[in-house]
C-alpha cells in the first residue's frame, strides 16, 4: 500500500524544478498520445514549432492569437484574484465586440481618432456590464457566479448570432447571413503588418500588474479574495469593491473583443473568439495569476494554437491535437502542485495520514 504524507515546505529552487518537470512530463505524455494516433511525435512537435514561429507570417499569426488570449487572461485574473470564478470571459468578449459595433454602425461618420477610442470605451462598458449581472446576482442572492457567467456566455453568443441574421445583416452579402463590415475608419492601425493590439495588451499587463500589486483597489481585491469576512471587518465596502473589480474584469475581456473585431475581422461573428475565453482560464491558472508571467504563457499557448492549425493543413493531423496538449499540460502542472505539499511513500500497513497536526 502507499500512503500520502505531508512533506516539509519546498525551497523555491525545488519548486521551480518540479514545475519544469511537470511540463516535461506533459510534453512526453502528449507525444505518447500523438504516437497512439499514428503520427511521428517528434515530427509533429517540430512542425508545430515551425508552424508557429517558422516564418514572419507565422509569427504574425501567432501574435494575432496571443493578443486576445493575453487580454482575456488578464481580465479573468482580476476576478480570480478575488476568488470570483468568472468563466464568462467568452461572453464578455462578445458583448465588448457588440458595444464596439454599436458605436461603429451608429457613428460611422466620425474620424478614426474619435471613433476607435469611442468603440473601445463602449466595449469596456458593455463587457463590464455583462460581467456585472452575475456579480449583482451573487451579491444580492448569493447565486453561483460560476454557473451564471458560464450560461451568460451562450446568451452573448446567441445575441451576436441574432444580430448577424437580423438587424446587422449585411445587405450586400447576396443572401449570405453575414454581418455588416465596420467602416474603414474603425480599423485598428498597424505597425508593419501587425495591428497594434499587442501594444494595448502589453499596456494592460503593466496596468494590471500595478493595480494588483500596488494599488489600494488591488489590495482590497486580494483581501476580499482571501477572506471576505476580514475585508468587511476592516471596514472595506465589499459590495463596491466587488462591482468595481468585476467591471474591470469584464471590461478587459470586452477590450479583447474590440481588438479582435477591429484588428482582424473588421466585423463581428459568433466565432470571433474561437473559444479563447475558455483557454484564458487555463493560461490564467498556469501563470498563477501573475500578469507578467501571463505574457510568456499566452505566447506559448498561441504557438500551440497556430502550430495546431498549421499541422492540420500540412500533416493532416487534426488541429485538436493542440487542444489535447493544452489539457495535458494543465493537468500535469496543476497536478504537480499536489507534490509541492505531499509526498507518497510506500507503507506495508494500511494508512491514512493526511490529517493536520493535532495539538
Amino acid at each position, binding site marked *: 500500500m502507499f500512503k500520502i504524507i505531508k512533506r516539509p515546505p519546498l525551497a523555491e529552487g525545488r519548486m521551480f524544478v518540479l514545475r519544469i518537470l511537470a511540463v516535461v512530463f506533459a510534453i512526453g505524455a502528449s507525444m505518447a498520445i500523438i504516437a497512439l494516433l499514428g503520427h511521428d511525435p517528434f515530427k509533429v512537435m517540430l512542425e508545430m514549432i515551425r508552424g508557429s514561429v517558422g516564418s514572419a507570417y507565422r509569427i504574425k499569426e501567432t501574435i494575432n492569437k496571443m493578443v486576445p488570449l493575453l487580454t482575456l487572461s488578464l481580465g479573468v485574473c482580476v476576478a480570480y484574484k478575488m476568488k470570483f470564478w468568472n468563466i464568462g470571459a467568452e461572453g464578455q468578449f462578445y458583448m465588448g465586440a457588440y458595444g464596439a459595433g454599436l458605436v461603429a454602425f451608429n457613428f460611422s461618420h466620425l474620424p478614426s481618432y474619435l471613433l476607435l477610442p469611442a468603440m473601445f470605451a463602449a466595449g469596456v462598458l458593455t463587457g463590464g456590464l455583462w460581467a456585472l449581472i452575475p456579480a449583482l446576482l451573487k451579491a444580492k442572492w448569493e447565486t453561483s457566479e460560476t454557473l451564471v457567467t458560464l450560461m451568460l456566455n451562450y446568451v452573448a453568443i446567441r445575441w451576436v448570432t441574432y444580430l448577424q441574421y437580423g438587424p446587422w445583416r449585411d445587405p450586400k452579402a447576396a443572401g449570405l447571413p453575414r454581418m455588416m463590415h465596420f467602416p474603414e475608419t474603425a480599423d485598428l492601425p498597424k505597425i508593419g503588418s501587425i495591428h497594434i493590439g499587442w501594444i494595448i495588451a502589453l499596456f494592460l499587463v503593466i496596468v494590471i500588474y500595478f493595480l494588483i500589486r*500596488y494599488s489600494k483597489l488591488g489590495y482590497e481585491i486580494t483581501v476580499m479574495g482571501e477572506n471576505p469576512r476580514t475585508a468587511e*471587518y476592516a*471596514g472595506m465596502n465589499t459590495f463596491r469593491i466587488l462591482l468595481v473589480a468585476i467591471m474591470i474584469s469584464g471590461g478587459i475581456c470586452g477590450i479583447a473583443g474590440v481588438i479582435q473585431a477591429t484588428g482582424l475581422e473588421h466585423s463581428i461573428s459568433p466565432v470571433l473568439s474561437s473559444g479563447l475565453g475558455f483557454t484564458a482560464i487555463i493560461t490564467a491558472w498556469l501563470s498563477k495569476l501573475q500578469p507578467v508571467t501571463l505574457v510568456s504563457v499566452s505566447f506559448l499557448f498561441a504557438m500551440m494554437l497556430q502550430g495546431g492549425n498549421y499541422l492540420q493543413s500540412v500533416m493532416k493531423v487534426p488541429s485538436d491535437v493542440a487542444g489535447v496538449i493544452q489539457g495535458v499540460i494543465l493537468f500535469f502542472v496543476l497536478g504537480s502542485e499536489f507534490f509541492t505539499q505531499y509526498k507518497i511513500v510506500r507503507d506495508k500497513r494500511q494508512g491514512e*495520514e493526511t490529517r493536520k497536526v493535532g495539538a
Partner: protein
Amino acid sequence: MTDRAAYVQMEGICKTFGVVKANDQVDFSVRKGEIHALLGENGSGKSTLMNMLSGIYMPDSGSINIGGKPCHFHSPKDAIRHGIGMVHQHFKLVDILTAKENITAGMPGSFFIKNKGMTEAIGNIAKKYGLQVQADRKIYNMSVGEKQTVEILKVLYRGADILILDEPTAVLTPQETDALFNILRNMRRENCAIIIITHKLNEVMEISDRVTVLRKGQSIGTVNTSETNAKALTEMMVGRPMSLEIQRPAVTGGADSEPLLDVRDLTIENQEKIKVIQNVSFQVRRGEILGVAGIAGSGQKELCEGIVGLQKVSGKVIFKGEDLAGCKPGNIISKGISMSFIPEDRLGMGLVGGLDIVDNVLLKSYRKTKGLFVDRKQGVSMAESIVRRFDISTPGVHHQVSKLSGGNIQKVLLGREVSLNPSVIITAYPTRGLDIGASYNIYDVLNEEKKKGVGILYIGEDLDVLLELCDRIMVIHQGELMDILPASETTKEQLGLLMLGHRGEGADHV
C-alpha cells in the same frame, strides 16, 4: 495502588507531521482504577498521543501494550475493541437524532432496532456510573454538559473501560465541571482507567491520581498528584519557573470615570429572526477591563460584531456622545474603536492568512494615506515596530501570517489593534490556544493599554482569568445580560450559576 502494574503502556512513541515532531520518544502508562491527567501546553503533543491510543493516527515508531499484549490499531474501531474510547473536545454527535440513537448508532446488531433492550442497557450503564441523561431527547435541545454526557455514554455503551477525555471542562460551567468530576470518580471506583487531557492545573490537582507532563512533544515525567503542587507542575510544563499571578493594576478614576462606550438596549437578530442579543445595556469606562462571561454561543460574537457595525442592531451604541448604531465598520474604526475576535481557527476574522505581516498590519490603516496606491513603506515600518515591541518570532515582516505559530499570529493581530491607538478595545478570546508565557504577554499588553486610559471589553472563556484580570464582569446567558459584578467580590460559582441562567440565586447558593 501504586504497585499495581500498568494496564495501558505506550513506549517510545514517535509521530511526525511534515517537519513537526509532534511526539518524540514518549512513554506513557495508565493503571486500572486511576484518573491520570495528561498535562501540557498547547502543541505539546497531548492530543496526538491520545489520538494514537484511540486509533485515529498510527505511530511512526514505538509500541502500545494493553493488558500486557502488544496492539496495533488501524482505526478507532480496533481501539474500541480493546476497550479504548475517546471523548473529543468537539463533540461528534448527530444533532437531529436523540441521545439513544446517537449512543447506539453504528453498533452491530440485527436489522431491526430493538428499542427496548437498548433503552434498558443504556439505563443500566447510566445508573452504574451516575450519569443523568434523557435517552429520548434530541441532541439539539441539549446543553453542552448534557451533550458531553451522551458522548461519555456512547463510549461506555461500546464497552470501553479506558476512557480518554480531551479538554473536557473547556466548555463547561463550574457546576457542570463538578458533575463531570463526580462521574469520573464513579468510573474510577468501577475500575476504569481514565485519562484526562488538560492544561488547567487546578483540575489536575483536584481530580487526578497521577500526572504525566508533556513539553514540546517529549514526556517530561510522571508524578503522583499528592506529591506535587501547581508550581512544580508549571515548571515541568513550561520548562522554567513562572508566576501564575495575573496583574490587575488599579487605574486612578478607573471605575468611577465617565463612560467611554455606552451601550443601551442593544438587540441583535440573526438571519432566522431569532434575538441573539436582547436589550443588553452596559458601559465601558476609561481605564477598566470589563469582562464578558458566558457559555460558548451565548451571543458573544454577535455582541462584538454588533458594536463595530458588522451586524444590524437596534438600540444605541454611544461613543463619546455620538450614537454609532447603524454606522459602517470603516466609520467606527476611524472613530477609535478596535475589535479583534479570535475564532477557533484563529484566522477567521481580523487577519488574512495568505498575506504577509505588512499587508495584515495595513488592513485598517491603508485607507488613511492619500492617492491610489497602498503605502507599503509605512506598513513595513509599522510591522517592524510591532514585531519588535511584541517580540514576534518571524523570519521577516514579509513572512506569510498563516505560516507563523498561533501565538505569533495573535500577537500580530493584537499588535496591529493596539498600534492604531484606539480608545476602546474589544477583544474576544485573545489567548485562545496560546501557551502560558504567550498568554501572560497578552494580559500585560491589555493592562498597559488600560493604564493609558483605554476602555477594554474582554470576552473570555477561562473564568479564573476573567476573575483575576478584569475589573468588572458581566455575564450573558442566551443573549441576555444577567448581571454585572465587581470581579474582586465575585466567585466562580456565582458566575457559573449566572451563566446557566439562574438569576439572583447566586448569593443564596454560595
